[in-house]
């Protein structure tokens, strides 16, 4: 009898937990906040070299020491259009703190059309022309938008799969910024302490 009661109680708790979880996730989705996938957390962001809309070759490693929001998007992706004005605002807000947003356009469209679209959206950050190789390097980006938040050390700290809410995006940006490059004055440092600029948590 006691055993039956225990099993019943366990099942009841399991059911209530699943219901609560399902409701929470569904509510988040309704408000545009999809989950963040944590499986890439702490992984060094693969370096790449891509061509920007104005024909320059741009490497991810050019931005070492900055927090980078890598946003895979396309002109045919309606949810991507929702994020872009937020990115414009966030680039303005956090640019001086060291944020760089890099848009990676996964279009087959001609470059001038992508450039026109970006211009119409008021994009104030570099847009690069994506390739399958870069998509593969980032785990085969299967849908858009997909964003990777990279900290100043060049490590991925979060991945946004699908359209996130603006607050979620901003929170991830803050986390990516929450480490700062500290330059050690080599002349003052003892030989054993001499090293290149290093990354330290902002709180230290």
């Amino acid at each position, binding site marked *: 009898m006691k055993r039956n009661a225990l099993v019943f109680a366990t099942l009841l708790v399991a059911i209530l937990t699943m219901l609560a979880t399902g409701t929470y996730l569904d509510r988040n989705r309704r408000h545009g906040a999809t989950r963040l996938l944590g499986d890439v957390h702490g992984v060094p962001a693969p370096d790449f070299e891509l061509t920007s809309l104005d024909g320059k070759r741009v490497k991810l490693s050019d931005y070492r020491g900055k927090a980078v929001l890598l946003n895979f998007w396309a002109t*045919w992706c*309606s949810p991507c259009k929702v994020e872009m004005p937020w990115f414009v605002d966030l680039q303005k807000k956090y640019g001086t703190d060291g944020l760089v947003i890099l848009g990676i356009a996964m279009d087959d469209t001609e470059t001038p059309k992508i450039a026109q679209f970006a211009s119409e959206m008021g994009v104030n950050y570099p847009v690069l022309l994506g390739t399958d190789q870069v998509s593969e390097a980032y785990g085969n980006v299967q849908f858009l938008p997909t964003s990777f938040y990279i900290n100043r050390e060049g490590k991925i700290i979060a991945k946004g799969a699908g359209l996130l809410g603006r607050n979620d995006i901003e929170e991830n940006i803050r986390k990516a910024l929450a480490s700062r490059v500290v330059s050690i004055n080599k002349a003052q440092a003892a030989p054993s302490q001499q090293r290149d600029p290093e990354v330290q948590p902002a709180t230290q």
Partner: protein
Amino acid sequence: MMRTLAALLTTVLIAGVAGAQGPGDSVPSVTMAPVGKVQLKAGSTANVEIAFRVGSGFHINSNKPKSELLIPTMLKLSPPQQVSIAAIQYPAGQDMSFPFAPTEKLNVYSGDFSITAVVKAPAKATSGVFPVTGELRFQACDRSACYPPRSIPIKFEVAVKSR
């Protein structure tokens, strides 16, 4: 009692998993229903209705999306020399808004829809069964993400009877 609870638990588990689905949990699918052999007399035309189903939770752009940047659904057919495609008629899409842009209407297909191909046999066509092949190109989205354009193969047969 325990069996009832176990059944209830299973139901809730399935519902919970379904409710927790996000982008990438399933691949957008568009499937084509089999098309019966089309009977056609030389010198005549026949309307071939090709039925498609868009997977649950997804939508694809209609043939006339509201923006030129959006990728329209397109049926391309390659008929053999003995028959031709006189026209392809697309259904009107539905104007729908989605959580990612509640104030914007997109013109889409979702669930079941059909495209009609008008197949024509020339007056001097010879008798025979001829395959018509092609592809349906579409670009799908769900509630919060969009997937790269894809194509599925199309195939049906046309039996032509000469005069």
